[in-house]
């Protein structure tokens, strides 16, 4: 062989563009040219359009629906109501949380903008005309919009359909508006420890109702092919296989006759996990009319009817010694779930993984209890760019640690450092039962503090406070520190399922004769770049360049079964399945290579992209050669072809973590906040594609900015929703968004095949408390312990005014 032409090991690794490479995204070639294929881009012959008549009331009886005028309008073909769905038993659908949700209002509406009737017309304009013409007679009922009043004795009964049901999906219900009580930990022991503590702080921390609000709303195209009896639904589904199974269970159409396809998805952030009435109505309309039916919600519908997030009222209590050692934590949560319990949590976890609320700290004893209640608000409760209820937990503990620091008159960073779980304690079992896989928290904390020059910042702040007192400035400097631990990658089938479906994930690989490959997964990208990164995982495992590997997801007819993409589970679960399937390929490849080289399997070793004879690297077979041999040689004892499938049941969750520091200035006269600096150090274990990780962190931090500084969906006392359009709901533009500084440490997960932990959601989980702590910190020296989110100008100004700081 010609010496010069033999690539070096480094060149071969480079060519693979495997793990650790900032490979450019393959998706972008299409997207930058307007060649994406999102659900609203789908156009089928004879396609009709569906649109909803929605309730103007928060709580009302539906007395009469008159569709006559609508049906007479040009282009309107049908108006579907609950009465039409009843004979099919489709007027209610199961939710992911074990409750049911009205597909179309059954005699009563329970939140403003609830779906009341579905108008099917020739195009979207005619459908909108039809919606205007449907006459609905309502009789208003008293509303419950304050979660704290939901369980009053005289609170109106919201869910008449549950009348007499004292047992819910998660145990006993103690009131007609009660959904569940869930608790974990040692309540008596925690109370005792709190009583015995030198200091105790208590605070009600509210995480307001928000919404994931991707730029693309939810929608679908349902097409019933009456000739072969097959129902196909293209839609914005973060979990296509789960949707297929649910669709089969509720329609009684056999699962093989349903095909669910997720095309390109324009962002999800949790919004597209649930099953919504629009999907069911479009499917029914297609079955009835025999024509494809498209349903695409508009932004107002998206914000007010599909998938809110948060709405947690958390009362935290921390006990500590005088010198700042945390001795106990308790937290009682009132969870506002809206009109139907449609939370997208693993079934056995009605409060998600809220019990990660001991955070990054070594807390000896703890208790968490959560009560869910019904109110006249939209259903949802999705994990908005976080793992299930983890951002709520992180916000609570990170705010509480700051509250404790005030009480002890200690620096918040120092207090954290004192209580961080130590490197040698991993794997660490928390007081609430989670086994944290790996971490080196102190190193991350120290690196963060040093990089931002924390000591100097505090000195500058002291000077700023003096200047403020002296009347030399009207601006206050705030420094926010957060050290968060996420829990992602749900999860082990033994305790994680959704509607009985174990939360494993899958990958199926087929190597083509000429040495390129296709891999199909049970997940679905919504911007995470799976087509790029999963090919990288595989490239490193099987030695085929990433550019020669096609990644396909989202079509239930071709992809192996998986539970989809949310809760940062793709990398921890499907990423692991990919590596494991790759290893099966390699194992067979080794046998083929042994045959070709006429040596024993054990005499071979893997080297980047080939098997070589131990001690004689000149004798080798590349993966490409092996692939071809697998198709053209009759190898004794081996089947032809080179394929593998892996269903990966993770042994544990993964626990990414990070240290975030925010520096901002607050103008006390206007409440305007200027984020001067935001530093984010993430440890997500092995880094598959640093460029993509950084992009995910930028995006997550921007969502954290949005949540902490402005997002809120509220309801007035008559049940009208506020914050339900982009006029009121804050999505930051490039102008409000600061420049992000990112950094990392790398502590691989010991139980994940490649050590990766997942990162997409960390910045939201850690970012929110960092911002909020910074705002609170700006006022701390005036005795402020806690002011709630969102920290919009008005609220911040109110806080300043309350402290007597405004002119």
């Amino acid at each position: 062989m010609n010496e010069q032409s033999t690539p070096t090991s480094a060149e071969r690794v480079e060519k693979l563009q495997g793990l650790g490479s900032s490979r450019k995204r393959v998706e972008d070639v299409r997207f930058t040219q307007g060649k994406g294929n999102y659900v609203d881009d789908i156009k089928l012959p004879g396609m009709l359009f569906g649109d909803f008549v929605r309730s103007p009331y928060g709580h009302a009886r539906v007395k009469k629906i008159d569709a006559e005028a609508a049906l007479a309008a040009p282009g309107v073909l049908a108006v579907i109501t609950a009465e039409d769905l009843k004979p099919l038993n489709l007027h209610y659908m199961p939710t992911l949380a074990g409750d049911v949700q009205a597909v179309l209002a059954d005699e009563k509406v329970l939140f403003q903008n609830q779906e009341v009737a579905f108008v099917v017309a020739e195009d979207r304009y005619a459908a909108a005309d039809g919606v205007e013409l449907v006459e609905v007679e309502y009789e208003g009922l008293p509303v419950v919009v304050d979660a704290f009043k939901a369980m009053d004795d005289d609170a109106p009964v919201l869910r008449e359909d549950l009348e007499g049901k004292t047992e819910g999906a998660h145990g006993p219900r103690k009131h007609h508006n009660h959904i569940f009580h869930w608790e974990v930990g040692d309540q008596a022991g925690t109370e005792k420890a709190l009583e015995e503590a030198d200091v105790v702080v208590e605070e009600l921390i509210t995480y307001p109702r928000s919404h994931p609000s991707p730029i693309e709303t939810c929608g679908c195209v349902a097409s019933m092919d009456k000739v072969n009896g097959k129902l196909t639904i293209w839609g914005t589904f973060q979990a296509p296989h789960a949707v297929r199974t649910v669709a089969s269970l509720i329609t009684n159409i056999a699962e093989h006759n349903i095909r669910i396809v997720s095309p390109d998805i324009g962002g999800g952030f949790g919004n597209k996990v649930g099953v919504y009435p629009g999907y069911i109505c479009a499917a029914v309309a297609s079955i009835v009319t025999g024509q494809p039916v498209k349903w695409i919600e508009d932004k107002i519908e998206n914000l007010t009817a599909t998938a809110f997030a948060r709405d947690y009222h958390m009362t935290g209590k921390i006990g500590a010694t005088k010198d700042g050692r945390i001795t106990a934590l308790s937290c009682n949560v009132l969870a506002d779930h809206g009109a139907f319990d449609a939370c997208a949590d693993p079934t056995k976890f009605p409060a998600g993984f809220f019990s990660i609320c001991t955070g990054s700290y070594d807390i000896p004893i703890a208790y968490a209890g959560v009560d869910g209640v019904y109110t006249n608000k939209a259903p949802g409760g999705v994990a908005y760019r976080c793992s299930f209820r983890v951002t709520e937990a992180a916000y609570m503990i990170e705010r509480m640690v700051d509250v404790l620091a005030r009480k002890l008159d200690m620096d918040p960073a120092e207090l954290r450092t004192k209580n961080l779980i130590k490197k040698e304690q991993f794997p660490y079992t928390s007081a609430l039962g989670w086994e944290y896989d790996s971490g080196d928290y102190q190193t991350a904390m120290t690196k963060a503090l040093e990089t931002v020059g924390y000591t100097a910042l505090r000195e500058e702040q002291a000077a700023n406070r003096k200047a403020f007192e002296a009347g030399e400035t009207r601006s206050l400097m705030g420094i926010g520190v957060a050290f968060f631990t996420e829990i992602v990658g749900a999860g082990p089938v033994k305790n994680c399922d959704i509607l009985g479906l174990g939360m494993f994930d899958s990958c199926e690989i087929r190597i083509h004769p000429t040495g390129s490959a296709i891999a199909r997964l049970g997940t679905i990208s919504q911007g995470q770049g799976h087509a790029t990164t999963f090919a990288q995982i595989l490239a490193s495992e099987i030695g085929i360049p990433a550019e020669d590997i096609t990644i396909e997801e989202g079509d239930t007819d071709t992809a192996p079964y998986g539970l989809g993409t949310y809760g940062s589970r793709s990398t921890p679960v499907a990423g692991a399945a990919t590596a494991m399937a790759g290893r099966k390929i390699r194992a067979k490849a080794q046998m083929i290579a042994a045959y070709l080289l006429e040596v024993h399997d054990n005499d071979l070793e893997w080297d980047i992209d080939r098997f070589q004879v131990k001690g004689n690297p000149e004798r080798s077979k590349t993966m490409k050669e092996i692939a071809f041999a697998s198709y053209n040689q009759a190898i004794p004892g081996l089947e032809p072809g080179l394929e593998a499938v892996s269903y990966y049941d993770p042994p544990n969750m993964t626990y990414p973590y990070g240290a975030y520091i925010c520096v901002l200035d607050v103008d006390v006269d206007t409440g305007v906040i200027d984020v001067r600096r935001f530093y984010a150090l993430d440890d997500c274990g092995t880094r598959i594609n640093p460029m993509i990780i950084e992009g995910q962190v930028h995006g997550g931090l921007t969502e954290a900015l949005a949540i902490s500084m402005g997002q809120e969906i509220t309801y007035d006392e008559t049940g009208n929703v506020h914050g339900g359009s982009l006029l009121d709901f804050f999505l930051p533009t490039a102008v409000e968004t600061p420049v992000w500084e990112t950094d990392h440490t790398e502590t691989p997960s010991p139980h994940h095949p490649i050590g990766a932990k997942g990162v997409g959601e960390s910045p939201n989980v850690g970012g929110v408390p960092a911002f909020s702590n910074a705002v609170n910190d700006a006022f701390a020296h005036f005795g402020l312990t806690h002011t709630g989110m969102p920290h919009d100008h008005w609220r911040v100004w109110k806080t300043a005014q309350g402290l007597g700081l405004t002119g």
Partner: protein
Amino acid sequence: MAKIHVKMTVNGREVEGLAEPRTLLIHFLREDLGITGPHIGCDTSHCGACTVDLDGKSVKSCTVFVGQAEGADVTTIEGIAAADGTLHPLQEAFREHHGLQCGFCTPGMITRAHRLLQENPNPSDAEIRMGISGNLCRCTGYQNIVKAIRVAADEINSAREAAE
């Protein structure tokens, strides 16, 4: 509803069609012409996903009636690359610098940036941020978008200088 006859140039091609007067330009483009690059992300003219170029100005095509575009010269994301398929420096830079994730805002964002660089060929970062503030992105946090636009501007400028 009676339809009106409309005629315009889209991406250099003359097109015509019949549409109800209330038809929004975005719907005419997407549904009648099959030009699905520009997207719909809101109902309040906030998101900019529908941004197209209309007679040399960026417009949100969800806020323009099709009749208002009568006789106009419209450019969408599909018309940004050169006729021979060579990508525009902005398209290259968005990919190179990871200026997109889900890609839903991208057509509007690039189309807007394309116009911005004609209005101001050498914008500062602050001017870029202001210049794209009518276009929302939920995925990227804008940082890499700003970078991509700056890099593309530099490239276009040096290509122009080299040509002069």
